[in-house]
C-alpha cells in the first residue's frame, strides 16, 4: 500500500491566501504526532477561488480540500489522516462523491497546465515521472530530425499563445532557414497584461515543461543560446526557473551534446525584466536584453533573420513552449483533435473579475464565452447581471453579453473587435462603467507607450484626456467621433503591437456601449454609477441612524445633522468624493 500524500498548493496566490501557514501547520503536526504521510508542495491548482488548497491522496483516491486555514488543517489531520474519514464539507473535488464544483473541471482539458498543481515544481524527479523530458528523449532515441520536429509543430495547429496567434511551426521554420554560428531561442515571460497570470502560474508550477519546450525549439531551429526574459515582479517564478535550469544541467538536458544528440549544445539563463509593458513586444524585448531602452524596431529584418545581437532569433511565449513537449510526445494529431480548424489545441485563460469561480482554466479552443462564464465560471458574483467580458488586456476589447455565444478561437474573437491576447478574461457586471473601463486601459497604454511613434505617444494621451473629460461630466458633442478618428490614426501610424492595438478597448466599448458614452456626454449620467463626478449623493432617511460618521469624515463639512437624527448633504458643498458612501455602515447613502 502506498503512503498517503498531502499536497499543499503553494503558488503566489496560494501563498497570498495563507497556504504557507497551512503548510507549516501540517508539517508541525506531522512532526509532533509522528504521523506517516508524505507532505509535498505543489503550485497553482487553478482553483484560485478556493485557495488555499490541500489535496490528500490515499488508497481511496484524491480529495481536494478548499479554503483551508490552520484550524481546518488540524481537522483534516485528525479526521482524514488519523481516522480515515474524509471531511466532505471541505472537499471541493473528489472521485468518490459530487461536490457541486464539477463544472469547473469537466469542461477543461489540461495540456499546458498538465502538471500544474500536480507535481512539486522544484523537484525534477516529479517532472520526470510525468513523462518529463520524454519528448526530448524521444527525439534523441528515434533520431527525429529538426525538419520533422518543425513539421509536427506545424501539423498540430499550435499558434503563438502570447497574443499574436502566429503559427508556431511557421515561425520556427523561418528561424531554421537562416544559418548562423549563433542563434537565440527566447522565452517571452514578460507577462505584462493587467488581469493575466497564466505565464506566472505555468512558470511557478511546471518550469521544466517550459525549459523542455525551449530545448526542443532550440534543437529545431538550431539555436545554441536560450534566454528566458521574465518580469521581475515574479520572484517565485524566477527562483523556480533557476532551480530547474540547474537540475536540467545536472541531468544532461542542458549543456553540451544534450541528451546524447551529437553537436547539440544549448544553454539557458533567466534575464530579469525591469518593468516595461512594451518589452512584451519581441523587438523591444530584444532591445531590453541588449541593455537598451525597450523600444521596438522596424521590421524587416524580422527577428528570424536579425534579432538579438543581430543574430537569427526566435521568440515564443511561455505557454507556447509548455505545449511543445506534449505535442512532440503525443503527436500532432492528438493535439489538433482539440480546437477548431484554424486554431488548434487548448488555451489557458485567467478568469477574473466579477465571476464566482475565478481561476486558471485551460479549455479547448472553440468553446463559447457563455460556456466559460456560466458553466465553468459559475456565473456572476452576487447574482448580478453579466454585462461584458474583456479579452486580451489593454490590446483587446470588451465583448458584450449578447455576443456570449461567440466561440473562442483567434479568428472569431478578432471579428468582435477584441483579440484573443495572452488569455486574460476579466468579467464585468452591471456595476462596471464601460467608459471608465476604456479610460482605465488608455491610462495604462498611455503610460506604457515607449514614446517612439508620435501617434502612440501623443494620440493615446489626447484620447485619455477626452475620456477623462467625459467621465468627469465635461464631455462634448463630437467627442465620440474624435475618439474614433484618433483611434484609427494611432492604429495606422504605430510601429508595434502596443500602438496598433491600444485603441481597441475604446473602439469596442464605443461599438457595443455607445449609449453609455452618450449618457455620460449628453445627460451627464453614469448608468453604472461608477463615475463619481456624475453622481448625486443623498441620505436615505429610513436607513440613517444618525451615527455622525459621515459628517465627521466629510472633508468639506457638507453633511450636517444631530446625533441620532437623520443627516443631510448640502449639495452645494458636496465635492462628490464618495467618502460618506464608503464610510457608512448602514448603506444609507444612495447614489443617483
Amino acid at each position, binding site marked *: 500500500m502506498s503512503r498517503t500524500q498531502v499536497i499543499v498548493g503553494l503558488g503566489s496566490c496560494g501563498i497570498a491566501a495563507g497556504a504557507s501557514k497551512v503548510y507549516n501547520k501540517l508539517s508541525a503536526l506531522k512532526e509532533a504526532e509522528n504521523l506517516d504521510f508524505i507532505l509535498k508542495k505543489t503550485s497553482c491548482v487553478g482553483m484560485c477561488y478556493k485557495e488555499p488548497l490541500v489535496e490528500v491522496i490515499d488508497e481511496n483516491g484524491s480529495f481536494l480540500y478548499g479554503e483551508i486555514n490552520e484550524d481546518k488543517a488540524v481537522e483534516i489531520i485528525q479526521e482524514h489522516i488519523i481516522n480515515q474519514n474524509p471531511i466532505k464539507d471541505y472537499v471541493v473535488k473528489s472521485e468518490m462523491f459530487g461536490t457541486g464544483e464539477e463544472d469547473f473541471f469537466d469542461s477543461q482539458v489540461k495540456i499546458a497546465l498538465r502538471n500544474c498543481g500536480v507535481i512539486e515544481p522544484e523537484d525534477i524527479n516529479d517532472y520526470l515521472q510525468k513523462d518529463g523530458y520524454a519528448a526530448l528523449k524521444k527525439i534523441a532515441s528515434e533520431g527525429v530530425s529538426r525538419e520533422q520536429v518543425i513539421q509536427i509543430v506545424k501539423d498540430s495547429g499550435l499558434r503563438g499563445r502570447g497574443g499574436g496567434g502566429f503559427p508556431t511551426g511557421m515561425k520556427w521554420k523561418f528561424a531554421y532557414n537562416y544559418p548562423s554560428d549563433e542563434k537565440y531561442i527566447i522565452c517571452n515571460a514578460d507577462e505584462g497584461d493587467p488581469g493575466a497570470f497564466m505565464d506566472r502560474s505555468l512558470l511557478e508550477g511546471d518550469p521544466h515543461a517550459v525549459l523542455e519546450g525551449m530545448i526542443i525549439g532550440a534543437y529545431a531551429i538550431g539555436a545554441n543560446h536560450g534566454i528566458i526574459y521574465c518580469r521581475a515582479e515574479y*520572484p517565485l517564478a524566477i527562483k523556480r526557473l533557476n532551480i530547474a535550469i540547474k537540475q536540467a544541467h545536472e541531468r544532461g538536458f542542458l549543456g553540451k551534446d544534450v541528451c546524447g544528440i551529437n553537436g547539440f549544445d544549448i544553454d539557458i539563463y533567466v534575464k530579469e525584466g*525591469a518593468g516595461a509593458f512594451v518589452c512584451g513586444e519581441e523587438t523591444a524585448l530584444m532591445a531590453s536584453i541588449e541593455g537598451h531602452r525597450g523600444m521596438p524596431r522596424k521590421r524587416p529584418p524580422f527577428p528570424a533573420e536579425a534579432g538579438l545581437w543581430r543574430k537569427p532569433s526566435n521568440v515564443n511565449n511561455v505557454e507556447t513552449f509548455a505545449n511543445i513537449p506534449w505535442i512532440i510526445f503525443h503527436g500532432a494529431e492528438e493535439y489538433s483533435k482539440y480546437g477548431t480548424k484554424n486554431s488548434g489545441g487548448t488555451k489557458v485563460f*485567467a478568469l477574473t473579475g466579477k465571476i464566482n469561480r475565478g481561476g486558471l482554466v485551460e479549455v479547448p479552443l472553440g468553446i463559447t464565452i457563455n460556456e466559460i462564464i456560466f458553466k465553468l465560471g459559475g456565473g456572476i458574483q452576487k447574482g448580478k447581471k453579466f454585462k461584458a467580458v474583456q479579452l486580451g*488586456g489593454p490590446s483587446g476589447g470588451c465583448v458584450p453579453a449578447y455576443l456570449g455565444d461567440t466561440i473562442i478561437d483567434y479568428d472569431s474573437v478578432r471579428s468582435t473587435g477584441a483579440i484573443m491576447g495572452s488569455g486574460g478574461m476579466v468579467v464585468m457586471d452591471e456595476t462596471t462603467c464601460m467608459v471608465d473601463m476604456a479610460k482605465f486601459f488608455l491610462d495604462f497604454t498611455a503610460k506604457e507607450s515607449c514614446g517612439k511613434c508620435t501617434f502612440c505617444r501623443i494620440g493615446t494621451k489626447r484620447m485619455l484626456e477626452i475620456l477623462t473629460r467625459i467621465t468627469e461630466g465635461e464631455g462634448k458633442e463630437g467627442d465620440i467621433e474624435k475618439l474614433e478618428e484618433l483611434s484609427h490614426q494611432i492604429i495606422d501610424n504605430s510601429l508595434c503591437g502596443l500602438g496598433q492595438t491600444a485603441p481597441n478597448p475604446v473602439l469596442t466599448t464605443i461599438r457595443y456601449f455607445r449609449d453609455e458614452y452618450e449618457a455620460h456626454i449628453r445627460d451627464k449620467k453614469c448608468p453604472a454609477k461608477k463615475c463619481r463626478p456624475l453622481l448625486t449623493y443623498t441620505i436615505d432617511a429610513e436607513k440613517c441612524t444618525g451615527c455622525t460618521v459621515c459628517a465627521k469624515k466629510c472633508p468639506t463639512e457638507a453633511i450636517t445633522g444631530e446625533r441620532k437624527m437623520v443627516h443631510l448633504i448640502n449639495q452645494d458643498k458636496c465635492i462628490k468624493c464618495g467618502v460618506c458612501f464608503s464610510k457608512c455602515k448602514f448603506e444609507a447613502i444612495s447614489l443617483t
Partner: protein
Amino acid sequence: MRINRILQEKTRAEQSEIDLSLLDSVIEKSRGKKGNVIPLLQAAQAFYGYLPDVVFERLEHELGISKSQMYGVATFYSQFRLSPVGKHIIKVCHGTACHVQNATELSEYLSEALNVNDGETTEDRMFTLESVACLGCCSLAPVIMIGDEVFGKLDGNAAVKIINEIKLKEKQ
C-alpha cells in the same frame, strides 16, 4: 502612477554616505559582458534601494558605459528609482481585475492613513506608497504587495490594518 523618480533636490551629504565598495564584485563580474547595463543597475538598486548619482559616476568610470545611456535606461523602466524610498514599499495593484474590484479604495485609504500621495515616501522613511500595473494575483483582487508578500481580497480598512501591524512591529 509611478514614483517620482527624478529627484529635485539632493543633499550631497546623503550621497557621500554611500558605500561604493559594495559594487566591486558586480563590476568585476560584468566586465566585458555585453548587455550588462540593466543587471548592473538592478544590482546597484538592490544594494542602495535606489540609484544614487555616485553609482552612475562609478560605473561610467569603471566600465565606460556613458551616464546618458544609464540614465536613459533608468528612467525608461519602472523598476528603477533615482530617489531614496521607504523601508517598506507598498505596491497597490491597479491591474484590470483589481480595478474592477475597487483598487482605488485601497489607494485612497492607504494614502490617507500614511499621509502621503501615490509615489511618495513617508517622512520617517518607513513606507513608500506606489501604484503598479499588475501583480498577477488577479483571482485575489484587490491585492497589495509589501516586500515579497502579497495580501489579497482586501478592502480599505483591511489594507490600513496591515500597515498598522507593520508599524507596531517596527516599534518593538
